[in-house]
């Protein structure tokens, strides 16, 4: 980096990059559990919306409507600043993970619901006619097909999660964007700092997309459209 003045090199290598790397670790620590719990929750909520009957179906539908229908920032603020009023105090990290999980589950449930609905009724009839119990028919026939139909949507939700994890700074959980904000306001180098932080997100999303493409190609089956 001989083309850069020494103090610039100093700033990038010894201030910005270490701080953003710290933030990156926090971001990853937010994304990994939130995406896994979010997906699991989305499968449960989505399944309830299709097979849950009147009561559970309606409750699951209401959950999805509320969490998809309100801004994530508001959900996070209520979790972190509102719940202590009810005697529940969450750490910034816990508040962020819970907020992301609840929001992500609501979106996943929509894709899961669509995937389950897209499995033709005849598939279930054929399984029943062969003597499958309802439970076995869902596990061996419906879910393998629904997963393939829901995958593109659920993958998209993972990409969104990576980006909306930047809202964790609202509840004072200092991940990538939070660190960038601190460095930027200390150094007044807003454009450089956020440009580099943006690159970090771009790289994460690229890696995640490659991972999703790999899963889709592993699960590809003729007749299941463009996966």
């Amino acid at each position: 980096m001989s083309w850069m003045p020494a103090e610039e090199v100093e700033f990038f290598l010894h201030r910005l990059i270490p701080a953003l790397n710290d933030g990156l670790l926090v971001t990853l620590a937010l994304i990994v559990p939130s995406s896994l719990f979010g997906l699991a929750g989305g499968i449960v909520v989505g399944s309830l919306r299709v097979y849950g009957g009147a009561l559970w179906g309606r409750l699951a539908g209401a959950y999805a409507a509320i969490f998809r229908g309100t801004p994530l920032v508001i959900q996070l603020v209520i979790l972190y600043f509102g719940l202590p009023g009810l005697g529940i105090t969450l750490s910034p990290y816990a508040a962020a993970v819970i907020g992301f999980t609840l929001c992500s589950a609501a979106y996943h449930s929509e894709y899961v619901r669509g995937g389950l609905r897209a499995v033709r009724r005849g598939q279930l009839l054929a399984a029943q006619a062969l003597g499958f119990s309802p439970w076995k028919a869902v596990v061996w026939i419906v879910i393998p097909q629904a997963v393939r139909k829901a995958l593109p949507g659920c993958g998209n939700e993972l990409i969104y999660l990576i980006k909306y994890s930047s809202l964790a700074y609202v509840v004072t959980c200092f991940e990538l964007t939070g660190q960038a904000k601190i460095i930027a306001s200390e150094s007044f180098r807003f454009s450089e700092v956020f440009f580099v932080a943006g690159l970090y997100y771009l790289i994460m999303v690229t890696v995640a997309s490659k991972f999703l493409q790999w899963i889709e190609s592993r699960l590809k089956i003729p007749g299941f459209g463009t996966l």
Partner: protein
Amino acid sequence: MRVVGISKRLGGRRILDAIHLELFKGQTKVLIGPSGGGKSTLLQCMNYLIFPETGFIELEGQTIDPRNTKALCAFRQQVGMIFQDFNLFDHLTAVDNVAIALRKVRGWSRRQALERAMAELERVGLADKATLYPAELSGGQKQRVSIARALAMDPKVMLLDEPTSALDPELVSEVLAVIRALAQGGMTMVMATHQMGFARAVADEVLFMENGRIIEQGPPAALLTPGAATRTLDFCSQLEGGI
């Protein structure tokens, strides 16, 4: 197998009206009649894919209680069902379509199930298509796989719901050949069809259904000989004249 007094209403309309039917081992009965006459519903009631409102089904002297899920699944394993639109499992290859119920319902090992599945595919002439997915098969091939899938469960009775109606005309004969071989091999079958030539050649008895009732029944020779003053013959000549 006996069907006793099956009735079913859907949306206030009476689809099946106290149907009685007796089926003896090795018999082939053919259901014919206009669309909406209740043929499909009757077949689906016969393995409780649709629950009838009154009446019951008896298999080898045993009455089936459809509310007992375990008994119902055991009963359905003994009754093979062939659908008009095949209903192959879209995410499984031909051989896995045949093997899956053996593995997951019967609890066979993977190897055992695949071996049996290959044998069944050979029987319907599709051993060379074993690794293809349903989307890669023609309609006739799909229907033959679905017949292999039903046969692998060693059913005591086969119910066939217009197995050739969704096929292009040139694919009908390959499927009918498989079904004819089954009938000649002594399989007990009830088949809804519009293939009159086939009904004449294979059926022990023809049942003519209209408005949820069996209006006429008898050996095809009696119902379908030219000049017989039957509703069945009337319907068939319309059908064949129309083509």
